[in-house]
Each structure stands twice: as structure tokens, then as C-alpha cells.
């Protein structure tokens, strides 16, 4: 008996073989998102998936058999804002890379969070520019030698979750691909949350990060995630020194504030 993968039904025919390198964490993320939709029993036809340019931009595009908008580098949230504003009934999900969302696209990220527009942004943070060949990203650890920091990175990395929280997001969580189950839970939460939700996922890039920088292959990187991560709860009891170089995983923000398209709808009602 030939078993069929339960998520295969969400995969676009002809795009079954993912376009990622062997061991890339993006495939694990893709599944986590589809699994969340499956478990929530939502109709994938009610979604619009928006992505930018980068390996992670290919997570939904063309892989997900749904309405997908593969945009320009850094701009998926801006495009997605147009989709959501014009069709507030759609579930709008942005999935893209750390470079895309936080380097070139950082402004759209913070403004969408500020507006609390109803969309879910899932950031595949591999700490590098994967697609273009392993250049430093604003998420690359200090000291790492990348193709554009041959003597070691001297720029501090963003704490993306803290940034998005400060900008105003309603829901913020961080996971790694090792935490695929927790990630699935958070995606479910985010998809049903009113307002702007953000999930950072540390996702291994074994080729441009692992191999090039000598950190190791996919397995080694996922083991690293396992060993270096701490739950939000555990982290709360530790001091700064103890938290150094640790990945805090779990839900970081979950609060309620008015959602943009609903507020706009109220204004429109005045005129009806």
C-alpha cells in the first residue's frame, strides 16, 4: 500500500519537489504551516500567501496550491497590506526570509505591526542570505565569517521579536525548526488571532550558513537549535549572562488591540 502524505493535498501539482537544498529548514517550516491549516480545518482557498525574494520566499510559492503572490525582494508585507485592505475577509499570510523581511523589508514589517493589520508574518530566519550565496544578514551572529564578512561580522543582530513587539504586534512567537510542533501550535494561534501576528523561525541553511561557515550540516544545526534553546518560562528565571547566545522559544506577546481593516470598515460604515 502506497501511503500518501497527509499534507500533499495542499501542494501544487508540479511543484512537489521542493526547490530547496538538501536539509534546508524551509521544508520543515512549509509543513508546519500546512499542518496548522489542516489541523484548524481551514479552507486553503480562503488564504492568500505572500512572499518575497529569497529561498524562504519559495516556501509558499509555488509550493502551496493556493492563491500565492511572489513579490519583489523586501516588499511582501506591503503587497500583502494591499491584499488585506481590499479583501479583509482573506487570511493573509506572509512567509519570507530574514533578509527579505528585516533587512530590505524592515520598514514594512514595523509599519504593519504598528497598524496592527490583520495578517500573519512568518520569518524564516536562517541568519544569512541563502539565495544569493551566504552574505551577512542583519540576523547574523557577531563574529561569523560570511562571504561579505570574511574577517568576522561586526554588526549586532536584530532581536526581531523585540523589534516587532515594540512596533506594536498583537502576537509574537519564536521557534526553531527543531520545535516543529510548537511552531505548528503558534501558527494555529496566529492564524486565528485578530491583528498583526509575527512568528520568527530559526531555520537551518546547511549550505550557505552551515557549510560555508563551518558550523556543520543540517543535522548539526538542528541539534544546535535543540541545545541552545530555552522556553520563555525557563528564560524568565535566568539572568542576562545565562541567556547569552540562547534562543528563547515560545510565545512572547499575545495581546488585544483594534485591527486596522476593521477600523477602516467602521469609517466606511458612516457613509452607508
Amino acid at each position, binding site marked *: 500500500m*502506497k*501511503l*500518501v*502524505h*497527509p*499534507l*500533499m493535498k495542499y*501542494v501544487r501539482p508540479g511543484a*512537489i*519537489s*521542493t526547490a*530547496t*537544498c*538538501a*536539509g*534546508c*529548514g*524551509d*521544508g*520543515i517550516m*512549509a*509543513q508546519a504551516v500546512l499542518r496548522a491549516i489542516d489541523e484548524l480545518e481551514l479552507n486553503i482557498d480562503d488564504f492568500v500567501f505572500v512572499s518575497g525574494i529569497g529561498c524562504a520566499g519559495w516556501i509558499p510559492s509555488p509550493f502551496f496550491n493556493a492563491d500565492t503572490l511572489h513579490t519583489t525582494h523586501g516588499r511582501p508585507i506591503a503587497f500583502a497590506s494591499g491584499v488585506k485592505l481590499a479583501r479583509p475577509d482573506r487570511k493573509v499570510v506572509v512567509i519570507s526570509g530574514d533578509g527579505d523581511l528585516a533587512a530590505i523589508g524592515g520598514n514594512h514589517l514595523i509599519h504593519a505591526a504598528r497598524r496592527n493589520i490583520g495578517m500573519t508574518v512568518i520569518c524564516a530566519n536562517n541568519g544569512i542570505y541563502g539565495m544569493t550565496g551566504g552574505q551577512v544578514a542583519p540576523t547574523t551572529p557577531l563574529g561569523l565569517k560570511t562571504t561579505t564578512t570574511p574577517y568576522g561580522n561586526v554588526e549586532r543582530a536584530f532581536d526581531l521579536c523585540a523589534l516587532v513587539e515594540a512596533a506594536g504586534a498583537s502576537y509574537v512567537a519564536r521557534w526553531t*525548526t527543531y520545535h*516543529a*510542533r510548537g511552531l505548528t501550535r503558534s501558527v494555529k494561534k496566529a492564524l486565528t488571532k485578530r491583528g498583526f501576528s509575527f512568528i520568527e523561525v530559526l531555520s537551518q541553511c*546547511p549550505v550557505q550558513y552551515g557549510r560555508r561557515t563551518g558550523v556543520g*550540516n*543540517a*543535522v548539526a544545526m*538542528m*541539534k544546535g537549535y535543540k541545545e541552545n534553546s530555552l522556553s520563555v518560562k525557563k528564560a524568565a528565571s535566568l539572568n542576562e549572562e545565562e541567556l547569552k547566545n540562547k534562543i528563547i522559544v515560545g510565545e512572547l506577546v499575545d495581546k488585544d488591540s483594534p485591527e486596522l481593516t476593521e477600523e477602516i470598515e467602521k469609517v466606511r460604515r458612516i457613509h452607508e
Partner: protein
Amino acid sequence: MIEIDEDLCKGCEICVAFCAKDVLEMSDKFNKKGVHPPLVVREEDCNLCGNCMLYCPDLAIVVAEEEESG
């Protein structure tokens, strides 16, 4: 039961590494992609935890409860 679609496999070895029960091993044959896919070598030890499926980045593994046939 557990099934591997060899030609979807990219040979990353994640499934092998994260199977707590050591059910899987990399084979030494080449698949269509020119890489070595894993083999189920100790199916009897498998507890259907689903980790290999959860982690396979390429949807190449399906784990399912054995269905009563008939």
C-alpha cells in the same frame, strides 16, 4: 507503518539523526537526484512517533498507523 519516497529524498540525513529508535539508515544507492536516500532498517523498533515525517524537509516520509486491512 513508514514509507519513504526515495525520489523525493535529498539525502539530508535529518530523519536518520532524529529517529530516537534508530529505525533508519542511509542507503548507499543513488536515487534520481544523485544522492543516497534512507532505508527503513529496523521497522520493528519504530514507535510511530512521527518525528522523521515532521522533520523531513521534503515530504518524503509518511508515517501512519497500520490500518486493518479488509
